[in-house]
């Protein structure tokens, strides 16, 4: 097995800086579609096998508690430069996997909360989550063809968002539109960082 033999002809590898943005929102709101619209790879799926025994909420009566759950996270990649790569992670839709979010959220640049005006309440949980952890996020209102359109301000009011939080109408299928949403998130993150720095410097 000489699989690891093969030396010489290797160029020095570039070790990229990697960043991530989360894409959250209710089930079926278009998270994977959004990732797919800008990703250079078909959204990949990664899975984590969870044993229910690892979760504090379960009481271990009976063998049923040993059943497992597989949580899938879809993600995409955008190589901005050879040494700068942005990953987009769609968060698991089911509420009971919130604890996995912590790991996703750690070190993330920011988040997109996708909303559907017909089921606005589906994104409340995600908004609460990011607000509490002070993770910069923007709300993308995915304009489904069959849904009524509402101005961004109305959505902002309905969601009771802080003034600084950007709300953009978007089409999760459209690359240009998704790019704009992502730029909005990064700009918002940048503005927040600047404000924090200024506050710290008095």
């Amino acid at each position, binding site marked *: 097995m000489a699989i690891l033999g093969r030396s010489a002809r290797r160029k020095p590898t570039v070790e990229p800086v990697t960043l991530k943005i989360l894409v959250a929102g209710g089930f079926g709101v278009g998270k994977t579609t959004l990732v797919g619209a800008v990703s250079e790879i078909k959204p*990949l799926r990664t899975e984590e096998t969870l044993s229910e025994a690892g979760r504090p909420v379960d009481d271990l009566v009976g063998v049923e508690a040993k*059943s*497992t759950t597989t949580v899938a996270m879809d*993600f995409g990649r955008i190589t901005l430069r050879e040494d*700068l790569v942005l990953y987009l992670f769609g968060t698991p839709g089911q509420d009971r996997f919130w604890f996995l979010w912590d790991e996703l959220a750690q*070190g993330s640049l920011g988040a997109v909360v996708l909303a559907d005006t017909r089921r606005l309440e589906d994104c409340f949980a995600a908004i609460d989550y990011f607000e509490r952890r002070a993770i910069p996020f923007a709300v993308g209102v995915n304009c489904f063809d069959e849904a009524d359109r509402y101005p961004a301000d109305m959505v902002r009011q309905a969601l009771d968002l802080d003034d600084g939080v950007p709300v953009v109408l978007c089409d999760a299928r459209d690359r240009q539109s998704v*790019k704009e949403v992502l730029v909005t998130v990064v700009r918002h993150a940048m503005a927040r960082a600047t404000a924090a720095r200024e506050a710290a410097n008095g």
Partner: protein
Amino acid sequence: MSSDGKAGQGTSHWFDDDAGPVVRPYAMTRGRTTSAGQHRLDLIAVVVAETRADDREADHTLAPEHVDIVELCRSTPQSVAELASELDLPIGVVRVLVGDLVAQELVHVTRPVPPAELPDESILRDVINGLRAL
């Protein structure tokens, strides 16, 4: 406690269908769910093959999955998430395997921006410009 002596038969299917998948992926890690001295690897931590991994004959302590990881990372450094997806393994398993390879100095891992610290403003600008240029 069941009064019915046959209760065991009724529940035995749990072991076959549901207990199985818990265990199987972790057989590759010999049951380990964490690796010694390893902080939890972020999903976007990048795994880079060391040059010495090229020169070294395959070691018999390496599982085929270890070899696969080194192979994948040799030409292009790969994130933990990409490795898991490419090898179709749970993230937890990939973390342990990568930990083994780090211990053997066959790969190293670049840490993403530390949590709670935003990347430099200049990097954020680069991200914005990069996105616009797509």
